């Protein structure tokens, strides 16, 4: 248990399209997290920021940007970029400093202001950048990859369009009880199936939007928490593993997989290995989890995650969905927050928002979306260029 750190406070700025500077969202989340922790800004020794690449220089140096906005206090800063896993990498860097006795209490924050529509690559002629080239040479968007996985589930495991729609219906219902979610609207199966096809077999309401939003987490050493008479939620594991060669599942933003012609494919897929590393570090298994927050960039991807995080064997995700196990009140609710289906993605804030949700659930503060008796939970996400993360928290 030597690797535990305490979650002292969490805070968020609601997701949406607010048209403001990302710093404004981030400061709101920071102040809420500080209040939740019962601390002042001057108590913070380090600010660990998650970078946004869509907001100029201030976004590249997110840690310093938030430290300056809160008022230069001499705090050290760090900034992490790991695509969708940026928030978890920021937590992990903060955690490493605490476990190395370099700091006692750290503020972790991520915020974003996003453009409308498909996430596009950086501008200019970028012939050496696979992320630019995939758009130029193939028109290959992020939903292209989501759709390839979805079609494969249908052909391999008998997933149906109704299954994909049912994930959206479930997550939309969960999100209605979350004040920080962007959408608070119930969907019927018919409405989802009537929405326009974007990347067959995925429809508009099954692909997550891009959103503005911010999330912040104050973490500390267990000693610091005890001194402040807190019995905190604990971070038990932060997995930020990269793929193992050869990576044989086609992944964003690449044109091809690695070749398995000379080195055999590893036993675990990349996404399996992300969760596996987290379970190993926490000394817990899927059977110990009360809930999961997974990256439903598309509704079909949520089904892949059931298997990747070990809730069921490969090919059984549809069964788990259909028998209600993953809805609130079921055996292992998945995305009780409403997930990306209700939030839309705010890249540097999203992995932190997942940890905020675990914290509220494990404290019993999740209101109408509370998972009864939650004792432990897992987050999982994956992003461009071999990034992914999983965080396990427990009471």
């Amino acid at each position: 248990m030597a690797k535990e750190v305490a979650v002292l406070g969490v805070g968020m700025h609601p997701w949406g399209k607010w048209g403001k500077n990302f710093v404004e969202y981030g400061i709101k989340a920071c102040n809420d997290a500080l209040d939740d922790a019962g601390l002042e800004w001057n108590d913070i020794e380090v600010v660990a920021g998650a970078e946004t690449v869509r907001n100029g220089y201030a976004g590249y140096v997110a840690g310093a940007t938030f430290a300056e906005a809160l008022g230069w206090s001499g705090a050290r800063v760090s900034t992490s970029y790991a695509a969708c896993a940026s928030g978890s990498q920021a937590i992990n860097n903060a955690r490493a400093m605490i476990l190395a006795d370099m700091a006692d209490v750290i503020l972790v924050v991520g915020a974003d202001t996003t453009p409308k529509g498909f996430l596009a690559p950086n501008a200019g002629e970028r012939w050496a950048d696979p992320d630019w080239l995939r758009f130029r040479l193939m028109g290959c968007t992020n939903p292209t990859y989501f759709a390839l996985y979805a079609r494969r589930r249908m052909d391999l495991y008998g997933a149906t369009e109704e299954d994909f729609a049912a994930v959206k219906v479930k997550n939309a219902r969960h999100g209605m009880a979350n004040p920080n979610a962007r959408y608070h609207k119930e969907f019927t199966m018919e409405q989802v199936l009537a929405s326009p096809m974007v990347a067959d077999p995925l429809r508009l309401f099954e692909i997550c939007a891009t959103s503005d939003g911010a999330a912040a987490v104050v973490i500390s050493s267990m000693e610091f928490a005890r001194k402040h008479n807190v019995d905190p939620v604990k971070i038990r594991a932060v997995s930020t593993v990269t793929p193992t060669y050869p990576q044989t599942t086609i992944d964003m933003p690449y044109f091809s997989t690695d070749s398995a012609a000379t080195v055999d494919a590893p036993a675990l897929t990349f996404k399996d290995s992300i969760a596996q590393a987290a379970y190993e570090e926490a000394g817990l298994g899927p059977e110990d989890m009360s809930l999961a927050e997974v990256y439903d960039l598309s509704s079909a991807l949520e089904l892949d995650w059931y298997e990747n995080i070990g809730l069921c064997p490969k090919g059984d995700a549809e069964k788990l969905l259909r028998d209600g196990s993953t809805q609130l009140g079921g055996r292992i609710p998945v995305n009780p927050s409403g997930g990306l289906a209700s939030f839309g993605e705010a890249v540097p804030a999203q992995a932190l928002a997942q940890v905020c949700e675990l914290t509220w659930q494990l404290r019993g503060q999740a209101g109408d979306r509370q998972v009864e008796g939650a004792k432990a939970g897992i987050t999982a996400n994956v992003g461009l260029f071999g990034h992914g993360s999983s965080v396990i928290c427990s009471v």
Partner: protein
Amino acid sequence: MTQKSVAPSIEGWFTTGDTPHLIGTQCKICRTYFFPKQDLFCKNPGCRGTEFDEVELSRTGKIWSYTEHYYQPPEPYISGDDFEPYTIAAVELDKEKMVILGQVAKGVAHADLTTGQEVELVVETLYEEGETEKTVWKWKPVAS
């Protein structure tokens, strides 16, 4: 009417002619394949190879998965004034044991594709730039 010239949209990624191939590389030491071409360092973690042979990859393979796109993607994709839906397939090459993406040839209906179906590589126009037709590799079902 002047004949439009034809040129690849990117140099050195594929051959043209009746039986086009994607051009990859193979590490001189561990013989691992790469596409797009890897020519600086071998990505096999157990190999420090820095020299590569350029190789033509298998021009047939089996569909791993596929999807049709109904919305105009953002730049730098060039779709002209009349956007038409297009299909993308991920195709497994048997010898190279890798999956490679590509658009599916024009005129092939998405509904006619299935996972596991055999396809071959063709070269088609991707977009026009002035008087030049810029080409790219695409996958096309093998006529049965």
